[in-house]
């Protein structure tokens, strides 16, 4: 079973980036922002980050760990991992189809 991120509206994309970041292991807010900026190429603002974290937590896709010096790490739950896998597989299929069609069309 996996959840749908599509109904998160404008928080769907930041949520996906956060899930990808947490797939490498538990991390706290600041480290997530840095990581997302490094692999995603664009940053997430602090307000957007916490709005997305709250939604992901409410849906059981991530969970908070005990705080360490005011910084609270988050980690992916089982449902979060399944959801992330489903999302990424969907994107992979989408990208593969697009590339195949592009190659089939040849240069203009």
């Amino acid at each position, binding site marked *: 079973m996996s959840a749908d991120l599509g*109904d*998160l*509206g*404008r*928080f769907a994309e930041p949520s996906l980036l956060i899930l990808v970041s947490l797939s490498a292991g538990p991390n*706290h*807010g*600041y480290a997530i*922002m840095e990581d997302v900026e490094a692999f995603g190429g664009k940053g997430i*603002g*602090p*307000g*957007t*980050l*916490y*709005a997305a*974290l*709250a*939604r992901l*937590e*409410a*849906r*059981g*896709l991530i*969970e908070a760990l005990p*705080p360490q*010096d*005011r*910084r*609270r790490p988050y980690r992916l*739950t*089982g*449902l*979060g991992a399944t959801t992330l896998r489903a999302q990424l597989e969907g994107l992979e299929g989408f990208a593969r189809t697009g590339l195949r069609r592009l190659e089939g069309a040849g240069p203009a």
Partner: protein
Amino acid sequence: MSALLRLYPRAWRERYGDELMALLEDRQPSPLDLVDLVRGAFDARLHPQLPGAQPAKSERKDPMSDRLPGVTAIGGGLLFLAGVAMVGLAPLPSFDGYRETGLALPAILLGLPLIDVALISAAVRRRGGAWGRVDTWLAIFAVGSTAVSLTGWPGLMLGFLTLIAVTATVFARYLRNAGAPPLIVAVAVAATILAVSANTEDDRIWLMAPIGLLAVVVGLLSALRPRPSASVEPA
């Protein structure tokens, strides 16, 4: 910076305030970050998504707020039906073919955006997410086209047709979101679009009635549907 955090609801600050402050100490916020924080505060106030007991308690304390969109859609539907009935039951004058609409027109034109905004809000709450771009634009079009329609001819026709298109879209989105079969969605859209054939000079005014009836039924379903528990299943 702590003044900015005060824009967030108390429950939110209690849960996330410390870690957000720690983050802002680690990373000097840019002007864009400050704007983002203000947007986040508005979002937290409009759509509290806190896990745990606090939101569950507040939802239990005020169950009406969750049912308000459904109740408003019923009210909008009844207002709309009252307007249609006022025209439909008025006698046809002999000198020209048109019935006196009087207060009926404002009732009809105010009923529609009420239905639209209520059902957009109900759909947003149903999926537990934030207002998306489409939701916002539909609400703007609903209210804007009502204003245009109240300016008289030709704004009346332009605004009315836009309102019907918005209402059909809102019904379709709500029903699809609620998991209704495609046939039901298609029938609801067709019944809504039927209103463009309405005319005040004969009994075709009643072709508008399905919109009001649909709004009442959908509003009832929204207001009476069982609410899921706010607690989160452990993964």
